[in-house]
């Protein structure tokens, strides 16, 4: 069946998953559903302790068994030790057929590939996967379909009961013996625990894992004791150097600076750029450079940002510190500057992933965005974006908040250099659709800027603005004139993964990768 972004979704995938094909970015607006609820265990006896001696004991007490679904968060990013630690123990116990439902998985989790290969893990549900796990899925090693969900989509899946987490393992920089968890004050601070909040609320069993046990009560808690079954102290939950890197030096790459300047010029010429505007940006060099250049103009014109949202980096915190932002609302911290800021600045506030981006709650922050500045591996002439599958067909990225913020923001801007080596970023067809083009308004490249024809209002705003505007087809043609027209990736037949729309429909499928064959 062809879905609303023109992708063929095989019947057997629809049947196997029970999902609908994607019908449009707002098809589920005002949709009524019943929320799921976990099976909880009471804690009435004050003499009973939540403390366990080891991960092993926690697993035993949680009654781990074959076929369960377990969850993790990715706030420790490339410094995470929790996933590998728990999976090693589960593997040693001989448990099989598990599904991992993680907010994301990165290269730090490469060691779990061995458990995919031996059948310990059969399912992966994640924002995305990088490194060896991505390769394992793309080469067909995972038994079940991998499911890629946006951050908001994951919350929806959990809340709606599409996925029931049996045990949530939550790494916490600090925790007390009764399970109050905080993201700061320990040796592996990660700033916020936003992604884990929904797991704590909806998982049947919740295990806090910390390397810094603090006196009771550890408050204000990001995750409350009321949702926590067990507390386990380990030597290290992560590598602090990789959890939070120092603030990236502003880029000196002229191409990125040029695209950032285009972006800033675009932003300030829209009607949304006025006192109190809301804004989110990513962590790429061009995004950060555009935050910096936008800050200068805000200062000059005396325009303040009402809301700064999202994954937070130092440049956004600098704007907050300068008084150019009213509230910085945070679901993930990318560097030391951001972690420092949330510890000290009362206007820098932690929120849950549900508040951030969930399409199935009663209103998320993303819906209040004026601007979001995103990156993309590929954008096609219908403005569909691909942020998960590399142009070589390998799963290599994550949806993150890409589709959520794009759907929410009034003005969604994607910045991408036209060419990455020989690979054109603007193409006729993206390898895989993650973010539907109807939610993407502007694409900024080093070769020119294309506004989505659906946004005639923005096109009108830019009539007298001196920027290198052109059509998206012209951008593609410029790229193809330089590198040649790319052939589509030669995939195998087997579907190995599903790109889920944020509302739970199927946006696209990912097929098994296959060795390239020269065909004459």
């Amino acid at each position, binding site marked *: 069946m062809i879905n609303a972004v023109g992708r063929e979704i095989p019947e057997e995938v629809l049947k196997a998953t029970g999902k609908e094909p994607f019908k449009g970015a707002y098809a589920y607006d005002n949709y009524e559903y019943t929320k799921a609820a976990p099976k909880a265990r009471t804690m009435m006896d004050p003499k009973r302790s939540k403390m366990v001696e080891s991960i092993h004991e926690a697993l035993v007490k949680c009654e781990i068994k074959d076929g369960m679904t377990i969850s993790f968060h990715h706030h420790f990013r490339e410094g995470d030790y929790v996933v590998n630690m728990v999976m090693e123990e589960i593997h040693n116990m001989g448990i099989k057929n598990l599904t991992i439902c993680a907010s994301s998985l990165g290269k730090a989790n490469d060691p779990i590939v061995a458990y995919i290969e031996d059948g310990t893990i059969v399912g992966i549900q994640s924002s995305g996967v990088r490194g060896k796990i991505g390769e394992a899925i793309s080469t067909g090693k995972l038994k079940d379909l991998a499911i890629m969900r946006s951050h908001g989509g994951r919350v929806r899946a959990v809340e709606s009961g599409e996925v029931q987490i049996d045990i949530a393992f939550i790494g916490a920089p600090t925790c007390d013996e009764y399970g109050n968890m905080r993201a700061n004050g320990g040796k592996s601070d990660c700033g916020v625990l936003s992604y884990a909040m929904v797991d704590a609320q909806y998982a049947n069993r919740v295990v806090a894992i910390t390397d810094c046990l603090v006196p009771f009560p550890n408050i204000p808690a990001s995750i409350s004791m009321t949702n926590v079954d067990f507390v386990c102290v380990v030597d290290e939950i992560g590598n602090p150097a990789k959890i939070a890197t120092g603030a990236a030096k502003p880029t000196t790459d002229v191409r990125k600076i040029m695209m950032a300047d285009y972006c800033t010029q675009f932003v300030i010429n829209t009607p949304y750029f006025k006192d109190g505007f809301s804004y989110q940006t990513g962590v790429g060099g061009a995004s950060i450079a555009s935050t910096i250049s936008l800050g200068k103009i805000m200062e000059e014109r005396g325009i303040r940002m009402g809301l700064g949202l999202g994954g937070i980096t130092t440049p956004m915190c600098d704007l907050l510190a300068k008084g150019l932002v009213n509230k910085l609302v945070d679901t993930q911290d990318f560097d030391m500057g951001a972690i420092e800021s949330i510890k000290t600045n009362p206007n820098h506030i932690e929120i849950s992933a549900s508040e951030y981006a969930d399409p199935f709650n009663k209103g998320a922050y993303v819906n209040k965005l004026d601007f979001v500045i995103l990156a993309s591996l590929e954008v096609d002439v219908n403005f569909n974006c691909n942020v998960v599958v590399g*142009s*070589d*067909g390998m799963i290599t990225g994550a949806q993150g908040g890409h589709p959520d913020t794009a759907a929410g923001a009034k003005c969604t801007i994607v910045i991408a250099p036209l060419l990455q*080596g*020989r*690979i054109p970023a603007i193409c006729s067809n993206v390898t895989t659709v993650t973010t539907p083009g109807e939610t993407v308004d502007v694409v900024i490249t080093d070769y020119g800027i294309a506004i989505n024809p659906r946004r005639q209002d923005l096109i009108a705003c830019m009539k007298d603005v001196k920027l290198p505007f052109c059509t998206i087809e012209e951008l593609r043609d410029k790229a193809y004139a*330089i*590198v*040649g027209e*790319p*052939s*589509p*990736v*030669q995939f195998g037949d087997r579907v190995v993964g599903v790109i889920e729309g944020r509302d739970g429909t199927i946006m696209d499928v990912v097929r098994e990768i296959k060795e*390239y064959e*020269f*065909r004459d």
Partner: protein
Amino acid sequence: MEVKKAAMAGTLESSDAQVTVEPGNGTIELSIESSVIHQFGKQIKAVVLDTLGRLDVESAKITVVDKGALDCTLKARVECAVYRSNDVIENLPWGGVIK
């Protein structure tokens, strides 16, 4: 032109290609490895074969390790390797068989 001895040109940097030529056994034996093989494998092969054809190379073992080079770079690396295998570095036929 004959490939008289093994010769190499190019690097493994991004946007470049490393081309090795070795004397052949009467045919063109071509192996291509590329970071963009799915998108451009066909085009890379065609450019390498065309270039060899222009240089009148009929017997050689060619190894291309491509890192996303454009056609103009692929041609340059193939030509350079072939001429190096003949120790020719001057009075080249620019605009003739090199084009």
